[in-house]
């Protein structure tokens, strides 16, 4: 049985015609695969390669270069939390710690026990005027506070946050930042 469904493979085979050269289809194809499976398994990458007449090693080489491709399982909801300078100066690191604690994981990429969440600290997302901010479920979330994070998490767990906790009086302030842990480096090439 193949990892990717027949209709996704069909869609992938139609992609090359959209480009002056077929190789350009590789990333859109990986997008479709990742959308279906949540992350890119070796089998899925091999099937993408076959569908596009490319070498499987080549496809994997492309997938490992770009940070939006996930080669390991990820949470259903992923917190891409900006920790670059403009967000860091407005408390991003404390928000990352809070998400870690709230979803019960100790490092980026780790999936919460219920499979619902994972987080990553990411580089500038190009919305610095709304710092601190993050991307979650294909949307940007702005002016983050600990309370906002709590309610975003609660909503996704299917329970609404307890009243009185959210929006009560002054939002808790996020203070100055601490240096964060070093991140995994992109594979050399």
């Amino acid at each position, binding site marked *: 049985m193949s990892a990717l469904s027949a209709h996704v493979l069909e869609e992938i085979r139609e992609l090359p015609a959209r480009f002056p050269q077929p190789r350009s289809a590789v990333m859109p194809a990986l997008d479709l695969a990742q959308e279906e499976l949540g992350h890119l398994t070796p089998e899925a990458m091999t099937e993408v390669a076959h569908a596009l007449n490319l070498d499987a090693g080549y496809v994997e080489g492309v997938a490992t270069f770009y940070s939006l491709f996930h080669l390991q399982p990820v949470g259903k909801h992923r917190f891409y939390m900006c920790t*670059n300078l403009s967000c860091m100066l407005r408390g991003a690191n404390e928000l990352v710690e809070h998400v870690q604690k709230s979803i019960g994981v100790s490092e980026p990429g780790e999936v919460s026990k219920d499979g619902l969440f994972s987080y990553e600290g990411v580089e500038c997302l190009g919305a610095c005027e709304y710092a601190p901010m993050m991307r979650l479920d294909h949307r940007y979330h702005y002016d983050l506070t600990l309370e906002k994070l709590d309610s975003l998490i609660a909503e996704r767990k299917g329970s609404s946050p307890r009243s009185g906790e959210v929006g009560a009086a002054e939002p808790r302030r996020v203070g100055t930042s601490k240096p964060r842990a070093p991140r995994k*480096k992109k594979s050399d090439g």
Partner: protein
Amino acid sequence: MADLRGTHGESNGNLLTRWFGTADLHKLDVYESKAGGYTALRKALLEMEPAAITNEVKTSGLRGRGGAGFATGVKWSFIKRDTPEPKYVVVNADESEPGTAKDRYIMENCPHMLLEGIMIAAYAVGANQAWIYIRGEYDEPYRMLLEAIRELREKGYLGPKPMGKDFPLDIQVYRGHGAYICGEETALLESLEGKRAQPRSRPPFPAVKGAWGRPTLLNNVETLATVPWIINNGGAAYAKLGTEKNPGTRLLTVSGNVKRPGIYEVEIGKTFRHIIMELAGGPPDGRKVKVFWPGGSSAPVLPESMLDTTCDAEALAAAKSMGGSGGVIVMDDSHCIIEAAHRLLQFYAHESCGKCTPCRIGGDWAVRMYERILANQGSQVELDNLRQVSDALQNGRCLCGLGDSAGWVIDSTFRHFRSEYEDHALRHECNVGKVMANA
């Protein structure tokens, strides 16, 4: 959409953001009926020779807003229009320079202004196909561009005969996948071709051999979004604004420790004091500006004492910095310069494509030195190592600008904050503690 933070509306001197804030400006009919949209395209296609369009852009003195500041009209004239082979316009909408959000601001508010600029450029250089390379995280701008392009196809502005002119035009959108290096023009082209995004050596330049080996005009979003105004009002009118060598207005993203972060359209030549203290309201009460990055994280830092520097390329070069992407990051005196430099070196180390040795290894090496200094394990050795790494990264030892940028962070923070480096590394003291205690 979230509340608009930054310039919009009629206030003096807004060329790009004049109509931002108008309800439904992202829709074709509103852009045309309220904002005079597509009059420039009509004029270009029906009343102007392609060479005259390029000349108008030359006359305007417009310089690229992506970072390098190259003269836009001159770049357009590098493409030989009358060769039979396919040519492309590729739009750099990768916007990943830390501290920069202005291309998003344009695309979210007025996608048609960008599309109109792209179509004019395509006609001027003889390209029938344009590609917008947009960073993968920009979900909303991506959706808006697709919808705007759909409207254009439906109306026939994109298609075999735009506005009746026998010049087929189409625009496609290609999404990036999270890699800063894709903003570098040749890495972007590699990525568009389905490869790992590692910069190419130049020459050949994209104008000769670009996307899929064809002549390619590559411009930034803001650069192209400025073109309709220039065609409507004339290059000479544009050249009257700003400074002589650096005309016009540009969008500055002001972020960090300011009261009113936002995207401000500013006539080039204004001081950073005006931009940071007046437009963005300065740092929170009780805090002082300590340092600012005048043009994205890649632009060498300037200390508070240089707030009167003007935001034109010449003045910034004299101050040993640059206008870059227009991202003005402000840090107040409650933050430590070593921590900031450490964070940026993590960024450059993480985003290195790995092609050149100094960049691949030097970035990680510098991060380790900063970690030791921040953990109070520093000494003269760490300072010397940082200087060495910064040297190895600069002055043409790397293939692309990423290496230089990483070196400049070390170099410029050291130049202006030497005593803080020494306090931290040699005496294991952070001066922020003292500042906060005296506050």
